[in-house]
């Protein structure tokens, strides 16, 4: 609409007319107006969750296309199509229709590949988004429930991926189902009944593909959609968190309105996400089922692995020594399956889901938090997150041990033993290193706040003494480094009251205090105003002239540290980003 508002074009009038029609009947104008003016803070990492959302939309669109041609049936048929290595081979209708989708339906292979790449990106985006939430402490009150919703979405994503991966009924995914069957059977007492229940009889049976189809196209996507709705509703309800910075508090949101800024940014980002996935689908082969052939329980090929998000389970199984199977009074307890396939993921996922509540318990903090933490300022949390990731990563690598062996010319036996040891040592080592790095960065922050930037300017005095001139931080830089709370371990009431009577609940309190000490015993407190004042007042050299405009920092100097006024005050907007 390039014309002036006084003479609206036909399109503008049509748009206004439609909007008015809708508004008069639904009153939607109020909602649109409110939402369009809603403020969101700006940071690239806030877009990670959007990758997940947009790749999910891509999955839905391409998935609808695939359901038009896929036949979810295990009935036998004989292939008679263009792919030479499958000519006249007996296979299920599911597999035959997947081949038809790939080689005969126009655009079918592209859609299949877009669907599968989008699924891998979806899971990767969820994990990346979750890391952002975790390391910045965005899960703290009031957002704990939204963390649980997000965690459930992660699990549902796994379920969606696994059920879809198994649908083509090829050898590779069939191997995965056989492992699933084995894991289900390993559940004590009810295992074999469960297996018959899931597969509708002895593995593989005739029921599984239709069942997985319903799970994959109806049940799981429905749940995911509902939970995404809830997830986003919570984001709007709680308002978005923001990184610390001058002017940003727990009671405001500094950013830009949804309209026009985020409609452009987020809307544009959808097309970027879709574009990248489409590019991958068009140029990179994924899950070429014709390589594996139709399912048959006997063959297992080298390099049989699940998609990346399930690879840690594969790794866990590969690392477990087989000798752990024990027999008690004629009953086999397959610990060699129970431990790697149930206990290891159980521990990892429980730690992940429960972490916000454990941290809240250790912190004893009931306040709301809308300002994100800088990861260095919460060393225990950051170190814990890194060690969880390291454990996950070691399991992923262990699941790829055969490819590591062939590509780096190593012995697979040595690799497996290395990972067995690393699985136990790696996370501790990563925890220790990360915590030290965090504490070191905090010390660096303190040093900067107290003494300013090194300028490299050496000044010689008349007396012959040399000093280096330090440039103090400006108010914005300093605020970023001192704004966070110093969290100390919880203090509890003594075990006995003044008359020596033992206090009820002391033991529980003591356990909580121990937990709190584990989190917050080692810490570097942010510089207090008193410390800052002290650092600036006990110097002996008062030689350099303070610049009047920046009074509070440039007065006295201390301990060989000399301050000059910052001369290149950039605009605060350009800083801390």
């Amino acid at each position, binding site marked *: 609409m390039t014309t002036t508002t006084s003479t609206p074009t036909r399109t503008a009038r049509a748009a206004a007319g439609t909007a008015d029609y809708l508004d008069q009947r639904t009153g939607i104008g109020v909602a649109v107006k409110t939402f369009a003016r809603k403020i969101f803070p700006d940071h690239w990492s806030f877009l*990670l969750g959007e990758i997940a959302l947009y790749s999910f939309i891509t999955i839905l669109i391409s998935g609808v296309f695939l359901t038009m041609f896929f036949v979810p049936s295990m009935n036998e048929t004989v292939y008679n199509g263009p792919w030479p290595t499958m000519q006249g081979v007996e296979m299920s209708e599911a597999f035959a229709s997947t081949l038809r989708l790939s080689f005969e339906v126009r655009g079918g292979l592209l859609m299949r590949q877009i669907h599968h790449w989008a699924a891998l990106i979806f899971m990767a985006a969820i994990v990346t988004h979750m890391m952002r939430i975790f390391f910045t402490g965005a899960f703290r009150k009031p957002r704990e429930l939204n963390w649980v919703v997000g965690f459930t979405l992660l699990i549902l994503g796994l379920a969606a991926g696994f059920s879809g991966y198994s649908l083509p009924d090829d050898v590779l995914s069939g191997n995965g189902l056989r492992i699933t069957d084995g894991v289900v059977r390993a559940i004590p007492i009810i295992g074999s009944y469960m297996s018959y229940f899931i597969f509708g009889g002895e593995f593989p049976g005739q029921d599984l593909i239709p069942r997985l189809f319903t799970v994959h196209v109806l049940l799981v996507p429905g749940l995911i959609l509902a939970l995404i709705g809830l997830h986003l509703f919570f984001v709007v309800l709680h308002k978005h968190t923001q990184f610390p910075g001058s002017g940003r508090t727990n009671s405001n949101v500094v950013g830009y309105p949804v309209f026009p800024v985020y409609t452009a940014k987020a809307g544009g980002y959808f097309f970027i996400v879709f574009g990248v996935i489409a590019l991958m689908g068009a140029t990179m082969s994924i899950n070429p089922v014709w390589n594996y052939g139709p399912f048959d329980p006997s063959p297992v090929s080298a390099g049989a692995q699940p998609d990346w998000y399930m690879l840690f389970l594969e790794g866990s199984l590969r690392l477990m020594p087989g000798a752990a199977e024990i027999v008690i009074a004629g009953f086999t307890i397959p610990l060699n399956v129970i431990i790697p396939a149930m206990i290891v993921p159980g521990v990892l996922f429980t730690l992940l889901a429960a972490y916000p509540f454990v941290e809240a318990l250790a912190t004893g903090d009931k306040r709301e938090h809308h300002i994100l933490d800088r990861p260095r300022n919460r060393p225990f949390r950051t170190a814990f997150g890194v060690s969880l990731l390291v454990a996950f990563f070691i399991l992923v690598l262990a699941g790829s041990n055969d490819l590591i062996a062939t590509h780096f010319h190593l012995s697979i036996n040595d690799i497996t033993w290395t990972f067995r040891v690393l699985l136990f040592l790696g996370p501790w080592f990563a925890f220790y290193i990360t915590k030290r790095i965090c504490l070191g960065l905090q010390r660096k922050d303190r040093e900067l706040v107290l003494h300013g930037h090194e300028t490299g300017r050496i000044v010689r005095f008349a007396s012959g003494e040399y000093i280096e001139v330090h440039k103090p931080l400006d108010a914005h830089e300093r605020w970023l480094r001192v704004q966070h709370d110093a969290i100390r371990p919880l203090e509890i009431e003594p075990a006995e009251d003044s008359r020596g009577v033992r206090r009820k609940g002391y033991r529980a309190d003591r356990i909580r205090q121990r937990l709190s000490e584990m989190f917050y015993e080692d810490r570097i407190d942010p510089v207090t105003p008193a410390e800052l004042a002290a650092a600036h007042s006990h110097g002996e050299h008062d030689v350099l002239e303070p610049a009047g405009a920046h009074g509070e920092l440039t007065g006295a100097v201390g301990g060989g540290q000399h301050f000059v006024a910052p001369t290149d005050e950039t605009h605060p907007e350009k800083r801390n980003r």
Partner: protein
Amino acid sequence: MKALAARRHDRRAPVVLLLLALLLTGGLYAVLAPASADAAPKTASTDDIAAGEKLFQANCATCHGPSAAGTASGPSLIGVGAAAVDFQVGTGRMPAQMSGPQIEAKPVQFDDEQISQLAAYVASLGVGPAIPTDEQVDPALGDPANGMALFRTNCAMCHNAVGAGGALSQGKFAPKLWETSPRHLYEAMLTGPQSMPVFNDANITPEGKRDIIAFIDQQGDTAPGGMTLGALGPVSEGLWAWVVGIGLLIGAAVWIGAKSS
């Protein structure tokens, strides 16, 4: 001097130095690396057992013994047949470069005539499988669909579903099959080199072997869906999803975040 000293501390200096060093190393390697042995002109002379024996004594007897009966460091070759020699020497595995978990393929050390002389000599020591005819290994005559069924039952567990190769125990591995010639594929099945089992004609018929060759030829490294990513399955797919997909998308997110609002 001062300007020079200041530039020396440029933070890009290490990167530039590293690039220069890499360039230098690569250039030197390209110049100095030994050129692969020139293929000798192929002459169609008849098999000469005596010439083969001479070659054997000069190149093989150290490990396999002067009468090819084997020593502590090499097995007996009596009865392995011409096919085994043609495979081992024809793929460069023999003469072995060094001992290790596995004797690996390397540039071929002899010309075709010498290989056939060696094969003739070893074949003369005892009855063994012969070198297959061109017709026996012609992929065009095989049935790739039957080859697929045979391949995944007998070969895929070590060589990967389409022959991309896979790991064995203790540093041994099943090699990639896409660059191996049909004749060598056939001979490998027939003689079972190193860790590979022997698939004799009772196990897999000569027609079956040809079907397998047809399958590898037909399917192998084909990619109707774009780049194969090594045909290694979900691990390489996952790696690329993170590197290319998430990499590009995070790059785009940073770009959008940095755009003025």
